[in-house]
């Protein structure tokens, strides 16, 4: 039963999240130095720094800090940014749509190009299309996303001037502006995923196309097109879904670097900035947040297994 299945998955998330929270907290605790130093400015005396530490509660024992933080997290309070003096949770929610735009853009790119290329390649193995897809996807996987970003900026923003080089426009402000602002970063993020999906889909499609039920479909006179698009694709998507789950996590990681390059105020940039300013509540909050996102994506993947695989729906 799907509801039971989802419930079970949700419950299994709890220990994972707990471990993550401990891990994240102790990791950030281990980061040398703290925000008090940076906050105090360059004229600060050690006494002043100590005072700020006390104000921020950074001088308490780690366990005390952890449980007070966890208590907050459980009540939906991810703490307050040391610099910006704002709720980390609010800020994350405000930034989430930005990163979400990017992630969806990149996912769309991944899916559309990945699936199209995978299907084209698998339909005619060893044809020039297949070779092109194979070569293209190999290179696509090998290219670091930040390098793609640099080159895209060079071509489309600087030389051609078609798309902005930096910045993010909210869709509520200007839809076209929003679209323009996420195209390049989405592509930079999506190329790797599209390549992985294309390769995976090509492989699994070719595997599926050798399976018995495809032979059955052929023996029933069903057209090759329907065989690939109806019979094979749905089943070949099972391993692709796994890959997509991994890619989604990978993509969220990639936003750190791509948002940095494109100056996009999303969650990834929030993490990056906070790591360098040692804004620990932000680091902790946003890393937990990202972990939650990844878990959510995996949950979605698990549920979508049920869509393509009726067997999974039952158990």
């Amino acid at each position: 039963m799907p509801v039971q299945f989802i419930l079970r998955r949700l419950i299994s998330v709890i220990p994972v999240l707990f471990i993550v929270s401990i891990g994240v907290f102790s990791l950030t605790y281990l980061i040398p130095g703290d925000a008090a130093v940076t906050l105090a400015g360059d004229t600060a005396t050690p006494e002043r720094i100590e005072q700020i530490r006390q104000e921020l509660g950074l001088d308490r024992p780690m366990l005390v800090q952890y449980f007070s933080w966890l208590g907050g997290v459980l009540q939906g309070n991810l703490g307050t940014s040391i610099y910006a003096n704002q709720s980390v949770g609010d800020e994350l929610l405000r930034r989430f749509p930005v990163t979400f735009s990017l992630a969806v853009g990149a996912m769309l790119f991944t899916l559309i190009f990945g699936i199209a290329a995978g299907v084209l390649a698998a339909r005619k193995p060893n044809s020039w299309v297949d070779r092109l897809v194979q070569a293209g996807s190999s290179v696509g996987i090998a290219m670091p996303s930040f390098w793609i970003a640099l080159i895209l900026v060079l071509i489309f923003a600087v030389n051609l001037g078609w798309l902005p080089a930096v910045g993010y426009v909210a869709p509520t402000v200007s839809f076209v502006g929003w679209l323009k602002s996420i195209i390049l970063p989405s592509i930079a993020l999506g190329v790797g995923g599209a390549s992985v999906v294309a390769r995976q889909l090509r492989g699994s499609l070719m595997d599926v196309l050798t399976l018995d039920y495809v032979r059955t479909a052929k023996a029933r006179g069903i057209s090759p097109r329907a065989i690939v698009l109806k019979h094979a694709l749905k089943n070949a998507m099972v391993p692709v879904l796994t890959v997509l789950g991994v890619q989604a996590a990978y993509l969220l990681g990639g936003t750190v670097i791509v948002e940095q390059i494109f100056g996009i105020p999303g969650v990834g940039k929030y993490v990056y900035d906070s790591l360098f300013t040692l804004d620990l509540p932000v680091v902790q909050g946003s890393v937990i947040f990202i972990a939650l996102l990844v878990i959510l994506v995996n949950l979605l993947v698990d549920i979508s297994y049920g869509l393509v695989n009726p067997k999974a729906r039952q158990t």
Partner: protein
Amino acid sequence: MTATLSPPTIESPAPRRRGSGRLLRRFARNKWGGVAAVYLVLLVLVAIFAPLVAPMDPLAQDLNAVNQPPSAAHWLGADDVGRDILSRIIYGSRVSLIAGVSSVLLSLLVALPIGLVAGYVGGLVDTVVMRLGDALQTLPALVLALTLSAVLGPGLRNATIALAIVFLPTFLRLVRGQVIAIRKETYIEASQSIGTPGLTIMRKRILPNIASPLIVQCAVSMAFALLAEAALSFLGLGVQPPEPSWGRMLATSYTYVYSAGWQVFMPGIAIVVTVLAVTLFADALRDSLGREIRRA
């Protein structure tokens, strides 16, 4: 030769080739795998003999040649403090290889025994190990690597450790998954029915049979390590200046996309080609090993 028959007719001399000979021949059949292997061997040689291969000292600054485009003196141009880019790319291969190889080995060293035991013994051990792995995997690799590097401090060694930790869940899962799959094979049951002790089964029956996918995964992870090292260096958490690393070179060149655009390409191409080679190598390896498994 006429039909190959089973006893009593078989008389063909039994070739006592261990798997590797067959493997090599099959590997060589894959054209791109071969090219990749040759490239990687060359790369390793170049990295080892960098002082002999590099035309210049990678650290020698020539402030008169700052951001000089490719020329007879500097084949790939000079960087922002006038260092020879070619020489730096050559020396940079050391960093990439060290980061790639050692992070994977380190991770494997930890994951292999744990995964073997978790997969073979199952039960609580397995649950605990897998939950830890799950938790580690909920963090995107780059975020995890970034956070770990921030904790450990920048530098090649720490970046390598961070990457090794990032790889842990992947290897754990792979080893455990493979062990569980192989544990179901009849030949394991056969060994158990003989009374072979668990440790011996793990060592002599399971380990050799999970080696192939593991080797392939190592190659795949190595490709990822190359990319991740570049990303960390790009973000300033990798190798410390003035040591050359491809990621760092790219980060530096980012500043000069307008005035010295070629600088963006050189280290980028080095990364892409090397990652590509490792990936193709892994593919070819998977294919040749795969056949081995399938036929068996």
